[in-house]
Structure formats: structure tokens, C-alpha cells
């Protein structure tokens, strides 16, 4: 699929002025912006995408340069493939440190206002954070949409699971999800009759199977109810074997690498064990695949190296009249000039930090006062152990299976749910394994030669890491704000994050630790978990120590609801205050349950795109191109 020769205007405001009128200006080329761009373009609308980053990976060569950069970094953190661009900076976990009480750390891109320091990240690159995401794509549970009604906790959504069900199917098609319906029908998740996923599920890893052999069929008891345990495969947004029954027997054609010339890779996952931070062959979905289709229509333009800086409003009508945008010529220099970009509809598709940041920097707090509030992100608690036998850790996709039976249940009246990932990449997230193991065995263990080689096998190939993805409920004081004291090199205000891990979540974390110990006991695994008080994510709950990691599942900051007094956007993600402005993405989600947010926000993007097409139809006839 060729995208290099598609119309994509570069940083040239002269070209922009002559390019005619756009039906929609979309800020951000991540999955939400890409889906909306493509849906609008397929409906004959003209779209301009404004992207802060460079467009390095629009070519296969550009994408591959990320991979080479990743290989060459000594510190392979989850942003390591992406070179520093101070004009469109992004959070990097290596820059963090623990805060003293009331201390604010403004040395990292996200100003950490505490008390909890989040190492959550997102990627400001062409294709957004899908260039980096792991691509786990579970649906939310029906009960997740009614937290207040069913459990007296959090918020209810203004829509229900069945309102999103068809859009979930569209999102699963767009992303190209591999899973088997029979594995995903648990708790109250339902599928329309005869539905199959586009591709068959990926097989469980050998490590998953060793865990399953000991825990499948066992139970845990929580608040008087029993929950059966089983290792289940996760649905994944990466290419596997197409299901011939898909789409009424039409099947599914996987989308591999997008490039300027024929590249036959990425049609199927190879098991590179590197979903995060970058799939080397593009078997994993990234928004560039959707953008390639959008550019193919000839109706979508791209303005890269363009940082949206202010949303300009007509004070009388509340309507957006333009987006002030700073164009920089060189990522290494803050030199830029400023233009005004105009269209009929405006769509902010940053993410749940960047979108409210831009709105707040524009002085737009929402009449609800909730812009930037209710920041949510899954809280991760890591537990790690050595299995009694060699399990072949470090092979597969990052994660193929886990324990999801406690994603829902009556206990949600009292404590957070969690979903448990069995990591195929060992202890890396917790300890820096396996490089840290080698360093320790050589430097402290005084091993070399055959002793060392055997010790590495014993240490690495038995590693099991259980990552508990714990629910976080909305709280108005957990928020993104801005402060003119903290700006980036272009003079744009940076996000300031204030966050406290809620007690409801910490009760879930405390149980998660107990649960991990139970599982390790059933496996005969040697528990090596320890939480360091100097860790930036260190918290205590009822005297017990935990180190909480961010989940990169940012949500809640422009919450969807039924009226303008208590929410920022309506059920189509349109701002109550500005009728030609949509804020799309996980920021609209009232709660996140234990679903990685991308599939749900992609489903909501389809819903919003339909509404935009209807709104544009009411406003004017489609522009002919």
C-alpha cells in the first residue's frame, strides 16, 4: 500500500491557504484521529490532520529507523525507539524521581505535582501511541458501564455495552483483532450471534501453559463468593491466521507493513516479543495503517511538525473559529511561525492528557468545570517469581494469556477489579531483566564461562511476571492542569498532573498481592517480589508497601455525560459548550474498568464519525473533489 505519494502537505502555510476548505480539522494522528479521518474521507469529506510530530514513519525506511534507534539505545525504555523532539516532547519514565511532600518536579515533560508520581507515557509520533502500544484489545464488561447503579462506585456511562457493540465490531475490524469468541465469552461479555473475530486467536505461550497446568480449575474466594481461575488468551490487535468465517464467510485480509513500495512483512506476527515499544514488522496494528487508507482517498491532507497551540472561540456562539498552530521547521530548533487553521468541524484527538491540556491552555475549562478532571489510568502492580521449571521465557508476543476472571464481580462494591497479565518477557518491567540479571551474575556473582551461561538459563528462562492491571475510578482531584510557569520550547503550556492512587484501587492492590502469593504457591514458584521505598511509584496502604506503575491507559479528562453541568462532551463526544468541536478518545470515558482503553476509544471514534457526517450533512452539501 503506497502512501508516500499521497497528498500530504508539508509545513507550508502558503499551500495550506490555497488548499480550500476543510470539513474537519483533526488534531492528532493517533487511532481516534485516524479512524475519524478515514470515515469522513470515505464519506466524501475533506480533512486536514494536524500532527505535532515529524512524519518519520510514513515510509518503511522511516519506521525502520525507529528500530535501529531502539537497537542502539543502552536504556531500552518504552519510548526508546523515538528520538527526542523538544518541540513536541513526550513523557519518558527514565526522567522520574520520588517527590518530597508538596514538591513539584518540572524537569520531566509532564510536570509531576504529586503526591503520586506517574510513569505513564504516551507517544507523540505519527500514528500516536499506537506506534508503541502493546495491542491488547479486550472489550469492557457490560457491568463496567454501570458502576454507580450496580456497585455504588464511580460513574455510570450515558451509554451501555449494547450501544457500543456494533462499534466494537468495527473497531475490531479496523485494528485487525485476533481472538476466538469462545475464549472471550466470560463474565457478562456477549457477542452478536455468529460473530467471529477477524483472525483466530494467537496460541498461549509455553509459559502460559505451565501456569495453566497448575491453576486452571482452582478457585479463590472473595467476599464470600468463589471465582474459578483459568489462563485465558487475550484478544490482540496483531495479525494471526485469518478466520474464514469472518464477515459472513468473506474472510479477512490482514494489513501488514505500510510502505512506499511492496513490502511483504507484517501479514502475520513472528513472535518478536517486542510489541512495546515497537513491532519490527508492523504485524501489530498502528494508526498509520488506517491513515494509509485515508490518504488513499485523496481527501485527507497531513500537516506535520504542526503543534496546535490554542483553540480559538467566537465568544458569542461558543463555536470554534480556528486553531492557532505553531509550525517548526527542524526538531532540533524551536524556530517556528504561527498560523490559524480553519475548517467546519474541529476534532481534538490528542489523548486524555494532551487534549485537555490544549483546551485548558486555551482558557476553555468547560461550563461543567471538569476539563482535565477525573484523570484515570490503570494502576499496575507487578509480582515476579521464578517457576520451578524452565518455561522458555522471552518468547512470544509481549503477553498472550492471563487471568481475567476477577475483572468483574460483586466485590466491586468494596474494592477494585483487576486483570492479570502473564508477561512473556520476564521480569523486564520490574527489574530490567534479563540485562540486569547478566550484570548481577557477572559483577556480584563473579560468574563467567560455563557457570555464567548455565546461571543465565536458570535465572531467565524460569521468570514469571504477573502484572495486575487494577481499576482506577474517577476522582475530580486527579487531574491535568496547566500553569504558565511551565512551558515547552515553543511556549506551549505543558501538562501538570496531580494524582493520588484512590483507596478503592489500593484495596484492590492489597488483594492483588495476596492473589499473586496464592498463585505462586500453587505453582511452586519462588517469589522475588519486593517494592523499594525509594521507587517513585512507592505507596503504602494499611502499612503494606507497594510500587504502583502507570498503565499508559489515560482516560476521563473530558468526561462524557447526559448534560452540560456534569460532563464535558455528549454521547457523540461533541462538546456541550462548542457545537462544532469534538474531543475524542479515552478522555471521554466515564470509567475504564479493566479494559485497555484503545479498543473502546476506537469504537467510540466510529460512533462520533457517524455523528460528524450527519452534522456536516445538515450544515452543507459535501465538497466535491
Amino acid at each position, binding site marked *: 500500500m503506497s502512501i508516500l505519494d499521497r497528498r500530504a502537505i508539508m509545513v507550508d502555510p502558503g499551500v495550506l491557504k490555497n488548499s480550500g476548505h476543510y470539513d474537519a480539522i483533526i488534531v492528532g494522528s493517533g487511532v481516534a484521529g485516524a479512524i475519524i479521518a478515514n470515515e469522513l474521507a470515505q464519506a466524501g469529506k475533506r480533512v486536514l490532520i494536524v500532527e505535532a510530530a515529524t512524519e518519520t514513519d510514513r515510509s518503511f525506511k522511516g519506521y525502520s529507523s525507529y*528500530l535501529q534507534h531502539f537497537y542502539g539505545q*543502552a536504556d531500552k525504555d518504552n519510548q526508546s525507539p523515538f528520538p527526542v523532539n523538544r518541540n513536541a516532547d513526550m513523557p519518558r519514565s527514565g526522567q522520574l524521581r520520588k517527590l518530597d511532600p508538596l514538591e513539584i518536579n518540572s524537569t520531566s515533560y509532564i510536570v509531576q505535582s504529586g503526591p503520586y508520581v506517574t510513569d505513564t507515557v504516551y507517544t507523540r509520533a505519527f500514528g500516536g501511541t499506537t506506534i508503541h502500544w502493546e495491542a491488547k484489545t479486550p472489550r469492557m464488561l457490560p457491568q463496567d458501564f454501570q458502576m454507580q447503579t450496580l456497585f455504588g462506585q464511580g460513574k455510570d456511562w450515558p451509554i451501555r455495552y449494547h450501544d457500543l457493540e456494533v462499534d466494537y465490531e468495527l473497531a475490531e475490524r479496523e485494528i485487525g483483532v485476533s481472538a476466538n469468541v469462545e475464549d472471550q465469552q466470560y463474565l457478562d461479555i456477549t457477542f452478536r450471534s455468529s460473530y467471529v473475530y477477524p483472525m483466530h486467536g494467537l496460541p498461549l505461550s509455553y509459559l502460559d501453559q505451565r501456569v495453566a497446568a497448575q491453576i486452571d480449575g482452582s478457585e479463590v474466594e472473595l467476599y464470600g463468593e468463589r471465582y474459578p481461575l483459568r489462563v485465558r488468551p487475550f484478544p490482540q490487535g496483531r495479525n*494471526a491466521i485469518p478466520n474464514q468465517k469472518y464477515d459472513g464467510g468473506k474472510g479477512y485480509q490482514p494489513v501488514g507493513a505500510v510502505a512506499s513500495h511492496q513490502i511483504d512483512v507484517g501479514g502475520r506476527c513472528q513472535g518478536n516479543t517486542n510489541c512495546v515499544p515497537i513491532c519490527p514488522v508492523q504485524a501489530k496494528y498502528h494508526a498509520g495503517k488506517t491513515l494509509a487508507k485515508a490518504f488513499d482517498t485523496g481527501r485527507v491532507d497531513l500537516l506535520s511538525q504542526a503543534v496546535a497551540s490554542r483553540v480559538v472561540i467566537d465568544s458569542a456562539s461558543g463555536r470554534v473559529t480556528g486553531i492557532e498552530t505553531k509550525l517548526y521547521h527542524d526538531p532540533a530548533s524551536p524556530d517556528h511561525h504561527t498560523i490559524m487553521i480553519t475548517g467546519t468541524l474541529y476534532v481534538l484527538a490528542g489523548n486524555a492528557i494532551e487534549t485537555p491540556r490544549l483546551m485548558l491552555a486555551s482558557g476553555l475549562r468547560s461550563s461543567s468545570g471538569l476539563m482535565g478532571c477525573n484523570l484515570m489510568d490503570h494502576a499496575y502492580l507487578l509480582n515476579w517469581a521464578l517457576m520451578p521449571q524452565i518455561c522458555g521465557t522471552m*518468547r512470544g508476543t509481549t503477553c498472550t494469556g492471563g487471568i481475567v476472571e476477577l475483572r468483574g464481580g460483586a466485590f466491586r462494591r468494596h474494592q477494585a477489579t483487576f486483570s492479570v497479565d502473564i508477561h512473556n518477557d520476564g521480569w523486564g518491567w520490574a527489574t530490567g531483566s534479563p540485562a540486569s540479571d547478566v550484570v548481577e551474575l557477572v559483577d556480584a556473582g563473579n560468574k*563467567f564461562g560455563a557457570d*555464567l*551461561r548455565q546461571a543465565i538459563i536458570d535465572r531467565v528462562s524460569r521468570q514469571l511476571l504477573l502484572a495486575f492491571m487494577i481499576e482506577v475510578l474517577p476522582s475530580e482531584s486527579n487531574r491535568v492542569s496547566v500553569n504558565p510557569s511551565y512551558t515547552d520550547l515553543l511556549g506551549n503550556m505543558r501538562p501538570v498532573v496531580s494524582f493520588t492512587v484512590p483507596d478503592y484501587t489500593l484495596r484492590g492492590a492489597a488483594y492483588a498481592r495476596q492473589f499473586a502469593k496464592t498463585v505462586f504457591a500453587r505453582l511452586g514458584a519462588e517469589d522475588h517480589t519486593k517494592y523499594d521505598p525509594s521507587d517513585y511509584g512507592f505507596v503504602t496502604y494499611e502499612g503494606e508497601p507497594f510500587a504502583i506503575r502507570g498503565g499508559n491507559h489515560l482516560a476521563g479528562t473530558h468526561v462524557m455525560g447526559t448534560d452540560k453541568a456534569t460532563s464535558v462532551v455528549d454521547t457523540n463526544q461533541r462538546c456541550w459548550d462548542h457545537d462544532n468541536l469534538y474531543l475524542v478518545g479515552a478522555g471521554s470515558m466515564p470509567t475504564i474498568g479493566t479494559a485497555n482503553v484503545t479498543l473502546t476509544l476506537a469504537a467510540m471514534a466510529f460512533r462520533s464519525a457517524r455523528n460528524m457526517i450527519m452534522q456536516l450533512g445538515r450544515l452543507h452539501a459535501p465538497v466535491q473533489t
Partner: protein
Amino acid sequence: MSVSRRLETFVAFSAEVTAFTPTEVWGTGLTQRYLDTVDGVVGTAMTDALLNAFDRITTQSAGERTAKLRQTVFGCEQLGPVARAVVKLWYIGTWYALPAAWQERFGPAAQDGTFVPTPDAYVEGLLWSAIGAHPPGAKAQGFGSWQFPPGIPKF
């Protein structure tokens, strides 16, 4: 020591301390690059000292070589940290900065620091083949291979 003899000795030393064969070491394509890396950090004189210390014990039995390596190389205040850095370089593909105490006593080694000499160094790390896996992001083992037990090579 001639240039070619120097490289051969470096390969023999590398094979000895990693428990990979000289053929496997050559097969990484990184032998000269790594020797240059060591030379670049600690200087040719100290590299020569390391290689000569190993050269003196090559004719001994395996058990004796290990004991001698502990005494004269890994246990040497000057050469030990360098030898350990070479082992880590081969296994991980990263040169890890020498300890501060070493720098104070035997430095300055101006080029020292923690770095990856070339992107290939990561891809060719011996760690991955030792555990029957592959470097994350390269040399993938194929769709579905992960569901089977690992093929951990005997050595």
C-alpha cells in the same frame, strides 16, 4: 602481538569467558568492533595486558584455566572490571561503564560510559541464544513458536 594474533587471542578469550565456541563468537561479525571498543575505552596497552594474561594460560587444562582466570584476570584489581565489561558486552551488546573506583585508580578512560557500540551489538547479544530465545525486536522465531518448549542449546 601482531594485529591478527591480537584479534585471535581476543576471540579465544571471549569464547572462554562466555562459554560460546570461537566459531560462534566470529559468527557475530562483531569481533573487531568489540576489540576496538575495548581499545577505545581502556587503551591498547591495557587490552594487551588482558590478552597476554590469557595467552599465558591457554595451554593449561580447562579447570586450571578457570582457576588461573580467577586469580590473574577476574581477580586482578586492574583487569577484572575490564574482563567483566567484556563478558557483559558479549552477552548483552552493551559496554557498561567501568566502576568509579576503577576510574579513580586506573583511569582516566575517556571513552568510558554505558553505550551500545553499534545497533548490531544488541541483535547479536549471546544472551538470547543461550536461553533459546531471540533479542526482542529481532531474529523472531516464527508465528506460534512460543507455544512450544524452548530449544536451549547444549554447550
